């Protein structure tokens, strides 16, 4: 008999606001978090827009004097992704009322985190003196140079494992601490795998979720060069328009979403508030192309079907789907097809929305940010909209909750996350 898994804590840092209240308020009002890139002058870039986290200071959540493993947490050497992780985890743990709990000693962390932001300025300082057109770089010269320390520390702190390791160190977590990196599906996969650990009895308590900040110069340039991003530079808030006929790519976002997952009985025993229950997890690969979804969405279909089977529910039980909905021509068409195939006749009656229309694409953080949106929607009984729905696309023919939030009575929701490279994840969540 599988154990039940409760969500007892939520924490969020997002382009729509930091903390649950602000996040939900923006979602429910259909506000866009997308704007012109503010942290550097992107006017020379092909893509100049992103959904950036604003008004964030780690010291609002943690004591900046606090040290963790000899490292000052308030220090600016921690990259944004790590700072967001620490803040979101602290919020989630307070929300769960587990600040002082002994239970963390045997708890687990499963995080879907990307690498930290590459500091292109630092790389330029390091490499330019040895750069040339013919060889690219005089490597021997570079390796002889004495000032690699700043780079080494930066590179070390960029490791994907850093956020989870810091969380383990901060809360004294001694169980399994794992970081997965399956691109845009990472934090959804992390939540699904953490759920399995609790179901099977490997742990009673887990921190799960993810963080990423791919809004730095090299990331924006890299995705722009793959022609994956919207180049609607003149109208940032209208750039992310999943399922709309005039969509032209996704908008990079950032943030962190952390959930406290807990064995149901463990949560009940300590009288914890239970926000929702994770009941289903399904995953499958396209095995098609690294840059494209399978045109028949074969992996996505099976991920959704497996998640429903895992939850032992029927398509007609589903009251809402939070779509992967990236705003690329290809994803939104394939995802619509996947929902038709996986949910059958029920699909037409089920509202589907993409909160990426507001948050942009948080990449490794996206799945967790969206799962939290689903939990809040279940709680409020209100569906966040897909904004920027102006012209319908005949190939995208579902109810996308266009432009305005909608009151809706429902108990069960799916959250889809499809990773670049073809890993597809679906989670099923039930109202507590």
């Amino acid at each position, binding site marked *: 008999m599988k154990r039940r898994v409760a969500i007892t804590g939520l924490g969020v840092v997002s382009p729509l606001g930091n903390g649950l209240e602000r996040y939900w308020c923006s979602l429910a009002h259909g506000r866009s978090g997308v704007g012109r890139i503010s942290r550097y002058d992107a006017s020379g870039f092909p893509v100049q827009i992103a959904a950036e986290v604003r008004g964030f200071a780690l010291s609002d959540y943690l004591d900046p004097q606090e040290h963790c493993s000899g490292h000052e947490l308030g220090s600016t050497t921690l990259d944004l992704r790590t700072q967001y992780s620490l803040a979101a985890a602290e919020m989630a743990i307070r929300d769960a009322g587990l600040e002082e709990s002994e239970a963390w000693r045997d708890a687990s962390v499963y995080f879907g985190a990307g*690498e930290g932001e590459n500091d292109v300025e630092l790389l330029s300082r390091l490499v330019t003196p040895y750069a040339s057109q013919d060889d690219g770089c005089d490597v021997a010269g570079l390796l002889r140079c004495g000032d690699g320390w700043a780079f080494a520390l930066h590179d070390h702190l960029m490791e994907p494992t850093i956020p989870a390791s810091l969380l383990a160190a901060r809360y*004294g*977590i001694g169980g399994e601490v794992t970081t997965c990196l399956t691109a845009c599906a990472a934090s959804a996969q992390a939540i699904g795998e953490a759920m399995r650990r609790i179901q099977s009895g490997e742990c009673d308590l887990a921190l799960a979720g993810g963080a990423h900040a791919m809004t730095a110069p*090299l990331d924006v340039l890299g995705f722009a060069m793959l022609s994956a991003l919207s180049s609607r530079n003149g109208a940032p808030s209208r750039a992310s328009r999943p399922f709309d006929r005039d969509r032209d790519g996704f908008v990079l976002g950032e943030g962190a979403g952390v959930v406290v997952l807990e064995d149901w009985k463990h949560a009940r025993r300590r009288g914890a508030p239970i926000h929702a229950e994770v009941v289903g997890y399904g995953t499958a*690969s396209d095995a098609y192309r690294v840059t494209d979804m399978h045109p028949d969405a074969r992996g996505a279909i099976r991920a959704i079907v497996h998640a429903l089977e895992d939850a032992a529910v029927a398509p007609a039980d589903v009251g809402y789907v939070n779509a992967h909905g990236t705003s690329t021509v290809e994803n939104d068409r394939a995802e619509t097809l996947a929902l038709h195939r996986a949910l059958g006749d029920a699909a037409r009656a089920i509202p589907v929305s993409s909160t990426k229309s507001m948050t942009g694409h948080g990449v490794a953080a996206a799945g967790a940010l969206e799962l939290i949106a689903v939990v809040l929607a279940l709680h409020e009984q209100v569906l966040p909209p897909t904004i920027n729905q102006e012209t319908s696309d005949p190939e995208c023919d579902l109810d996308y909750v266009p432009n305005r939030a909608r009151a809706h009575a429902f108990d069960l929701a799916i959250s889809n996350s499809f990773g670049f490279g073809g890993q597809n994840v679906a989670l099923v969540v039930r109202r507590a």
Partner: protein
Amino acid sequence: MYSRRIVLTGLGAITPVGCSPREFWQSLDERRSGVASVRAFRADDVRPSYAAEVKDFRPESDGLPRKKAKVMGRHAQFAYAAARQAYEDAGLVDCPALDRKRLGVVLGIGMLNADVIELGRAFHAMACAPETNGVEENGGSFDHVKFGRVCPSQLFPLWLLRHIPNLAAAHVSIGVDAQGPSNTITTGCVSAANAIGEAARIIARGDADVLLAGGADARVSPLGMLRYRELGWLATRDDIEPTAVSAPFDASASGFVNGEGAGVVVLEALDHARDRGARVYAELVGYGAANDGCEVFRPDPAGRALTRATRACLETCGLTQDDADVMFAPATSVPSFDRAVASGLEAAFSRTGKRPVVTATRSLVGHTHAASVALDCVAAVKSIEHARIPATINVEHPVTNLPLARGESCCMDISAAVVTAYGFGGHAAAIALRRFFE
């Protein structure tokens, strides 16, 4: 014990001492070191000038088309080749009994460094281009406007694809048409142990029947060398032969030798392997993982997470310390780290009586980071198969009283091998493999 028995039916290895499991094993057995002068870039007068590089790697011979290799990082090429070897070795090519939807991939992958050669061209072009007003605007020394205007034309348009960590597993999935679960785990040098352990769980819970699991890393790059040297972890001795530098558990150890490679094993449900008449190398019987939960930038001197992970692993399969014949240890030749490993393992086997013989393959293949534990699993399987334990070289004054395999490889009937992993971030894990009995 797992609710479904899990066996290893295929092996693949791309290593500094050979590009197949057979060559890898022979080199270990004959104590051939893979440490030599760096070939990847000119580094004559820099320290260190040596590394454990994969030599004579020909991706085409492992079925990787040139065009595909172009969009793959070196680590991904290694992963692809090793996975392909394992897949063929397991007899899975065109195997009618294999349901592609129940074939998955879980890889441990390390962080991928920027390519200084490629970036160098972009930065050079920037330095030659006229100033824009970008510098003044942001007040810093870096002109982002110029960067945005000049660099795209200097970079390979698909460069990002070489730097996205999960694409190695994606390439493998595509290469073998694996439509089941896929995961990429990045926990530093423990990555491959977590990948293999998580893969075993996926089979045990019935979500797949066959998993390609392992790890790959390629950090013998200029920035990889620079990083580890600056952090003080890399051996930089130039007063002795390169092959003598990597000395895990020895008093002379001065740092690790940077290595690279990939190891992949085929994990399969025993019922599935039986049904298709597969050859079985060994059984995976246990897995444990833990975290120090206190240190991020250096190991806990007592190696407590390693002790807990090893004990948890043995408990899950009901093995006692008497049952483990050989232990593949994660000692890297970094003195403080090796002492932590030694303490952690000594505590795990503190009871008097028989203790497993301990060996550290990193003395021969250097530190292959996210690939290291997968390579140790391949070595452990070969050890069981050949009833031989490869020796740790360069140990003259051991810093531990663990029974180290030194000198020549020794013959020993091995019924159980334990592969352990420990790394920065406080991560630890252990995997138990047993000779297969029906």
